[in-house]
């Protein structure tokens, strides 16, 4: 008896599932003027993603650092080096007091943040270039009039350039896409008054 009831219930549930879309359609037809939910709702107030953090380093430990952030003074647990960007992920460039950072991770307690990714002194600037100089080794330096000011950009043997098909190759100063007046986007490390380019995106 018990098993028959169970079977009947399953049959009923399956039937209901089969006709549900039809019933839903009929209901929508009846209220034809009803507007479907807006997939892109307006948002009047800003939202900060829970995993986002930025701030300035105030002390550096072995696997942690202390920082002033918009969430208050925090201890940040660093990820392994592959998650630490300072001129590139895993570059090994030392973290210093005063470094500005952007991090992604989780607030594990009210004063501790476990970072999955963290970037120190990263800049992403775009604009025209001037005063281009190319060394015999193929490195280049130029002035970039970026959105947030002028930057003295330098390249090195780790700098790459992105071609029009998306391939990323080692940068060579003589690249024809890098010329005075050209529009260029540079992602790099702000250090010592210069912007050390890690990736160069020329405009084709």
């Amino acid at each position, binding site marked *: 008896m018990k098993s028959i009831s169970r079977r009947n219930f399953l049959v009923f549930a399956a039937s209901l599932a089969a006709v549900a879309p039809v019933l839903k359609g009929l209901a929508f037809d009846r209220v034809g003027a009803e507007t479907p939910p807006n*997939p*892109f*709702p*307006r*948002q*009047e107030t*800003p*939202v*900060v*993603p829970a*995993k*986002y*953090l*930025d701030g300035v380093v105030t002390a550096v430990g072995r696997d942690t650092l202390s920082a002033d952030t*918009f969430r208050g003074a925090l201890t940040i647990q660093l990820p392994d080096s592959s998650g630490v*960007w300072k001129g*590139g*992920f895993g570059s090994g460039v030392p973290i210093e007091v005063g470094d500005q950072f*952007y*991090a*992604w*991770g989780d607030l594990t307690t009210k004063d501790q943040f476990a970072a*999955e*990714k963290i*970037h120190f002194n*990263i*800049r*992403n600037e*775009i*604009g025209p270039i001037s005063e281009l100089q190319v060394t015999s080794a193929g490195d280049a330096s130029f002035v970039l009039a970026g*959105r*947030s000011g002028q930057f003295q950009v330098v390249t090195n043997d780790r700098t*790459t350039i*992105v*071609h*029009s*098909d*998306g*391939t*990323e190759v080692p940068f060579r100063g003589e690249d024809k896409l890098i010329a005075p007046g050209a*529009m260029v*986007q*540079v*992602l790099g490390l702000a250090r010592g008054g210069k912007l050390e380019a890690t*990736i160069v*995106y*020329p*405009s*084709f």
Partner: protein
Amino acid sequence: MTVMYGNVTYYNCNGGSGACSSCNDGWNDLAWPNLSTTGCVYNGCANNCSHACGDTVQVTNLCNNQANYIRVHDCFPRVGCNYADNCMGRTPPLADLLPAAFMAINGGSLGAGRIPAKVVC
């Protein structure tokens, strides 16, 4: 709805304000090149649909399929149309995201300056 393919990058507020309100690197916001609120239109590279301050658009990172709804808070003048991303080589630039919005669809990373994107608006 309009679907566009191209790429997106990110920018920093640097203490400045946006066309719609103040600006904060931690906001899930973007700058859009066709802003009805201020009448700013930079549609020379792609025909972005018109949006007002506070509207949201859906942005998908085509490199990892992470998607998010991001609020329009500023207008951005495109500085060139032919920047390619280094994952799929897509063009043109479609929007400029604030760091938090960019990280949210890029695995928490700012290590690439451009990512290929689908934008639905």
